[in-house]
């Protein structure tokens, strides 16, 4: 029983961090109506920045995160401003081509990372990397717990930003009706730039939180793109609450799969749930709350 409890808790903690990455993706999808297939690559870049901060200056990943997030915000803004928005301005090009562009960005970022850091597996070993605490006889990882709570704190801050500030409300308004937002005086292209920046910063945050737990290599981005994509579909596209539930579901599923089936098959469990949701609940969890 304690193994089961430990597995579920571990899944929830991991899922909270996945959710943070997926919320970044869902935010971008809401405003731009495209899947950002470079999202995992942005997570990877964020992780490398945090890694370099650790290696060069001995900065703890939770501190390095505070450098990686603004850096990724800037990178995200530049990508949206000078690449994706330029493609939007061309009338004859289909929205699919913006998605293709994100694939290109993903490839460039991944190969740049390979050029600089080689394909070697790297890891950050901090004093607390493998430390645990016990609840009853369940052993729970400290970096996972800390990461989970930081992820939830960021999610809450994002929620406040989206509901309490004019800029946040403008992001939601642009996602719900772009032209109406322009009528209200919202500078929609600027909002898309800021949204992409915020989404990228959240990706960096999620990556940095996972850095003490995961090996880092240039192709790890694909893993996170797939996870974020699955979570976004699970949650119902464009929904922040949905992304949280989707993240927790995926985390628990992977964790159960790793414990009860095999470590190597943990991703299969997530993908099976993904297929089941697509088949039986195509609107995601969001559709459950709508009448």
């Amino acid at each position, binding site marked *: 029983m304690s193994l089961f409890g430990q597995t579920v808790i571990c899944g929830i903690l991991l899922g909270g961090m996945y959710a943070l990455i997926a919320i970044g993706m869902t935010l971008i999808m809401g405003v731009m109506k495209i899947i950002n297939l470079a999202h995992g690559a942005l997570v990877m870049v964020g992780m490398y920045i945090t890694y370099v901060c650790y290696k060069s200056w001995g900065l703890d990943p939770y501190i390095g995160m505070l450098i990686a997030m603004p850096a990724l915000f800037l990178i995200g803004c530049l990508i949206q401003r000078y690449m994706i928005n330029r493609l939007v301005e061309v009338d004859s090009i289909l929205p699919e081509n913006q998605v293709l562009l994100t694939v290109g960005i993903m490839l460039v970022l991944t190969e740049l990372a390979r050029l600089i850091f080689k394909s070697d597996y790297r890891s950050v070993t901090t004093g607390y990397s493998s430390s645990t605490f016990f609840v009853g006889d369940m052993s729970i990882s400290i970096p996972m717990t800390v990461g989970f709570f930081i992820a939830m704190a960021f999610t809450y801050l994002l929620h406040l930003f989206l*509901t309490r500030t*004019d800029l946040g*409300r*403008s992001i*939601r*308004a642009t996602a*719900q*009706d772009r*032209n*109406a*937002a*322009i*009528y*209200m*005086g*919202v*500078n*929609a292209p600027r909002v898309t730039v800021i949204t992409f920046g915020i989404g990228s910063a959240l990706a960096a945050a999620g990556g940095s939180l996972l850095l003490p737990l995961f090996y880092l290599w240039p192709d790890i981005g694909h893993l996170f793109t797939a996870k974020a994509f699955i979570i976004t579909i699970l949650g119902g596209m464009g929904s922040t609450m949905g992304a949280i539930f989707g993240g927790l579901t995926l985390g628990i599923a992977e964790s159960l799969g790793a414990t009860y089936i095999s470590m190597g098959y943990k991703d299969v469990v997530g993908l099976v749930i993904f297929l089941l949701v697509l088949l039986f609940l195509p609107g995601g969890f969001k559709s459950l709350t709508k009448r």
Partner: protein
Amino acid sequence: MLKVENIDVAYGDLQVLWDVSFTVQEGELLALLGANGAGKTTILNTISGLLRPRRGSIRFLGEEISRVPGHKLAELGIAHVPEGRRLFPEMTVKENLEMGSLSPEAKKKRKETMEWVYTLFPILKERQNQEAGTLSGGQQQMLAIGRGLMALPKLLMLDEPSLGLSPLLVSQVFEIIQDINRQEITVLLVEQNVMHVLKMCSRAYVLENGRLVLQGSGPELLNNQHVKEAYLGI
């Protein structure tokens, strides 16, 4: 106040407006009338900066606005209440109203303006924390107008505010529009509901197939033979 001169507008190769010119005087309630597809909404979208005229000029308070990006117009004092209301369905009534007052000047008076909008539409105050998508059609129209007023506009452009409303609600909405106009807000009203509008507007233009064909005061047009035959069915 607003002077539209000889504009041609096209969607790609498809031209929909030919040589359209009209003026809106300060304080008046001007109506643009015409059948479906005559180009009324296109005119409003061109003024709003969503479309660019091929030719001609649009001047608002003496300033050329036909090349000004759409999001700047709210700040200049033009509020557009679009056809089909176009609310933000997953935001609350209050948030929708807040979205209407983004310009620095309107933002300063956000609280007072909201109180004023709530006195015009008490139902909105009752529903202020409800999502806009859950309101009835009439309430949504009131919210759309209220959201437009939140910008404290000099010119309020209303696109088919009677669309999809019951006859009782139509009269109510038109009364509110007259009320707003009496409070010294210039109104540019686009409508298909010709009879009703001609009775309340100060002047009207009639648009047919992308060209302005008639203009005059309400009573003049009510007695016009062409208007009677084509729009009033008399």
